[in-house]
């Protein structure tokens, strides 16, 4: 029989190793699924990597995809630290873009680019922050479930931007084609070496969030509220205020991600502007263990999957949706691996004295906990093989 008990916290390097091993295990699983679906997993992966990093233009594309993902993930991670499950990234990105577009459409064409960009940035932050603050207020004052609330806000934002796209802001100059007028050209972010400067914004935001979380009073409070709200309350912190501040920062940064995407490479607000970034960023934030610097790296890798998937579609006729299979499996495998970082499984000898207690352990619980360490070990072995 087996018993499960809490483990002491793993040393950092060990936790990191388990994480890397689980990602590799996820990739192995993905290879198996790809093979079952009838495609060559090795050719797929090498084409994927080649498509994402193989040439200068591929690399530029990958980084361009990564920028809004990274900013969104940095923003969401702030909320996740407080155990505020902000899954409303999609809606916050959209509202950030809507507000930024509104500013661009209503400023005179003579506005200098830098001023317009700053104003649009403020508007983007404002749009995302408001969209996150509404569920935040209800969460704080009447404990309304924020997971479901933020999810609904996504759809309201999407419906709203469809309304803008097809009706209210429809550009009459587009010959009946439903399209919103592009933003003013001086608001386009400057391009250096083929990449717009959004990557500098992303790194600056990640550094700022890293600093706030680690070095400031607010960051400390955010972490404590996330660990245990009653403790924070007991320590004399104003939990409501901390949470609302955190939510505003989180939503605002996500809104800013939308503005960066808008001014960086899309230039036109449309219902498909998020490209699922709000959901993908949750995956990124989780894979990075909510750490802002790690988010920078992971978002480039996830962006590489998305960019590479376009190439495998063209080169190998492998559907680009394979990238989602890989993403999903990697995430599931890291989610499962966390169990082995937090708990240990103890082998218990059958003892007649406590047999009655053990017999009541549901059999499938045992079955799973016995089956999966083996797979984690194979993943670890895989890792060694690679090294």
């Amino acid at each position, binding site marked *: 029989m087996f018993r499960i008990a*809490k483990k002491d916290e793993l040393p950092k390097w060990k936790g990191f190793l388990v994480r890397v091993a689980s990602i590799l295990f996820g990739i192995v699983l993905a290879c198996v699924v790809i093979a079952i679906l009838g495609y060559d997993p090795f050719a797929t992966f090498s084409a994927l990597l080649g498509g994402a990093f193989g040439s200068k233009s591929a690399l530029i594309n990958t980084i361009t995809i990564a920028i809004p993902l990274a900013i969104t993930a940095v923003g969401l991670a702030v909320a996740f630290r407080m155990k505020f499950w902000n899954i409303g990234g999609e809606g916050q990105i959209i509202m950030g873009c809507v507000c930024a577009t509104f500013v661009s459409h209503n400023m005179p064409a003579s506005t200098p680019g830098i001023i317009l960009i700053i104003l649009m940035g403020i508007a983007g932050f404002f749009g995302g922050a408001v969209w996150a603050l509404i569920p935040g207020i209800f969460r704080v004052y009447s404990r309304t479930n924020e997971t479901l609330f933020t*999810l*609904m806000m996504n759809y*309201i934002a999407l419906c709203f931007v469809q309304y803008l796209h097809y*009706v209210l802001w429809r550009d009459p100059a587009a010959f009946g084609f439903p399209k919103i007028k592009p933003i003013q050209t001086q608001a386009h972010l400057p391009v250096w070496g083929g990449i717009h400067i959004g990557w500098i914004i992303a790194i600056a935001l990640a550094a700022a969030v890293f600093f706030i979380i680690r070095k400031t009073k607010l960051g400390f409070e955010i972490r404590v509220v996330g660990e245990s709200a009653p403790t924070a309350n007991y320590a004399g912190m104003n939990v409501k205020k901390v949470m609302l501040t955190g939510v505003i920062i989180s939503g605002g940064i996500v809104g800013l991600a939308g503005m960066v995407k808008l001014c960086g490479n899309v230039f036109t607000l449309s219902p498909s502007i998020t490209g699922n970034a709000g*959901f993908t960023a949750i995956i990124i934030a*989780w894979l990075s263990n909510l750490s802002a610097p790690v988010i920078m790296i992971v978002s480039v890798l996830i962006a590489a999957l998305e960019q590479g998937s376009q190439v495998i579609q063209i080169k190998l006729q492998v559907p680009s949706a394979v990238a989602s299979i890989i993403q999903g499996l990697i995430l599931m495998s890291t989610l499962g691996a966390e169990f082995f970082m937090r708990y240990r499984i103890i082998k218990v000898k059958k003892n007649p004295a406590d047999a009655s207690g053990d017999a009541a352990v*549901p*059999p499938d619980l045992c079955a799973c906990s016995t089956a999966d360490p083996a797979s984690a070990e194979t993943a670890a072995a895989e890792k060694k093989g690679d090294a």
Partner: protein
Amino acid sequence: MDLNFIISTFIASAIAYSVSLLLGTLGELLTERAGHLNLGVEGMMLMGASCGYVTAVRTQSLALTILAAILGSGCGALLYAILTVSLRANQNVTGLALTTFGAGLANTLGSTAANTNTPDTITAFFSWHPFELRNVTNPVLNFINTAFLSHDIFVYLSVLLAVLLMIFMFKTKEGLALRMVGENPAAADAAGLRVTRIKYMYIVIGGMLCGLGGLYIPLVLQRTWHADITAGKGWIVVALVIFVRWHPIKAIGGAFIFGALSIIGLTIQQFPQLSSMVFFNQYIMVMYPYILTIIVLIITYSRKKAWRGPSAIGSAYFREER
């Protein structure tokens, strides 16, 4: 145009549209009653839809199609159950992972059946309307006939399923066990219920129902396959379960309201004086179900005594941590 005709055909198409929502809602409702919020509905619906549809195109057999849909979505739900029940992973993130994975799998698998149509044998089965009246002249009967009686057997079975589920949940011992696990797993465990087994069972059954709901979309409604064919219905389902407050009978009405509001924009375009008003614009009207859900959510949580859904939802049960 005859107003009676417009309204009755609108009701009929709203019912047809809401079948997949109803089946998905019943599935997610079972899952949530067992204490697990599965945000992977969209993924499971897509897995059921793609596995089923591809099987339909290849074998032309309805039985195998349904079996494949159930197995495909059941596997997705099983993955979710292993991660959240046994490995205690975060339910929100696991659900999202399932949606990502399911969508990827469905779009990859489905691309092998691109540019095909539902086989005639299966279409023929679904064009059989068991309760449809013939040669009706009475306008009232005619209205009822078009709106409510001209549907395939799947529609009536899904309504019947909702009724059976209500009886199961509130009148049987097993139903009580299910609700107890969702409300207080520690107490259920102490009472001798096999919490893990019950959770696994209903998460998987719930996933299978979602898969059946997904299957209806390519097989009957659209009769073809294209990428992301469920078009966000899985997310509507998550909203619906809250909207109907975890009750199977209310799910029938809830699914109909959401279905009707999703397609009413097209009908309203036949009345230009209405559709030119902002609040009746088709893009604004699709927003209403979500606003309604938020209002229900707020009311549910602001009333002190109101039941807020299964209370153990979202947290993993760990018997050693009692």
